[in-house]
């Protein structure tokens, strides 16, 4: 009969979950959590927008691509 204790199982499960997480996807953006800040240049390449500079306004971030 298997005599693995519950804490051991939980520990193994935690290892498994970490191992299964796709690389480079450590963070998830969550509703109700702060939006990660970033800076992106304008299409003409001259100026840069920073998300946190929009604080005080409501912003829709829309990702798209020409392709």
């Amino acid at each position: 009969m298997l005599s693995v204790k519950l804490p051991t199982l939980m520990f193994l499960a935690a290892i498994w979950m970490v191992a299964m997480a796709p690389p480079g996807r450590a963070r998830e953006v969550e509703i109700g959590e702060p939006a990660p800040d970033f800076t992106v240049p304008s299409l003409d390449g001259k100026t840069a927008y920073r998300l946190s500079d929009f604080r005080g306004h409501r912003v829709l971030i829309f990702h798209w691509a020409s392709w």
Partner: protein
Amino acid sequence: MCREQLPVWQKFYIQHHAENFEILSISMDTQGGEVARRFTEAAGVTFPAAVDRAQGLWELYSFPVVPNGFFVDEQGIVRYAKIGGFDVRNPDDAAAIERLLARPSRPRVTPAGSEHTRTVEEALRRAREAAKREPENLDLRMSLAERAIDAKQDAEGLRVFQSVLEKNPQSTRALVGLATAYLDLGQKDKALAALRQASRLDPGNWIIHKQIWAIEHPEQFYPAINGPWQDKQLEQEKAKK
């Protein structure tokens, strides 16, 4: 096609801009802002339009596809997120944003000096300082490399991405950024090698996939996108699997 949404977003923007609302559109075009600009100009877009050439955002916001919508409130909190298939022409998606906008919101008087824009050189200078303050922080280092590419300092971007990959060879963000720098420096083969490695690490990432196609078959993307070719290409790849 995402770009067909642009004129509809412009209408939405005009309708709601006075409700303390901004749209920050970001095109995931490694080939640069110019390829995206043709479409924003044709659509008469007046909201902020940016480009994420080195594609650092898909890791930060965990999206393997576009189009996506993230609604951020006055305090910088995420109130809505839809990854893939986000479309203003879809009544559900438009209604979700309009519901959030229906809440009262008073525009905050923006204090002097905190305008939305700065120069790309200024953004690079700040990124250099931030990375210097925390030399072991790889995220800050990647942000620095991305800002260097934005400011056309590709040699610096390349060097910094390489330093990240020495510490973390599995970083798809660094690999894709590295590919962007190589492309700018005219080293197409090295760019493709980095992208293929990134694609192996993150096979579900459609953005990397399209980027490989765009480099291998530029005639199918520029000056005009060949939709049927992409469909055929996708079918062939699925058949291989």
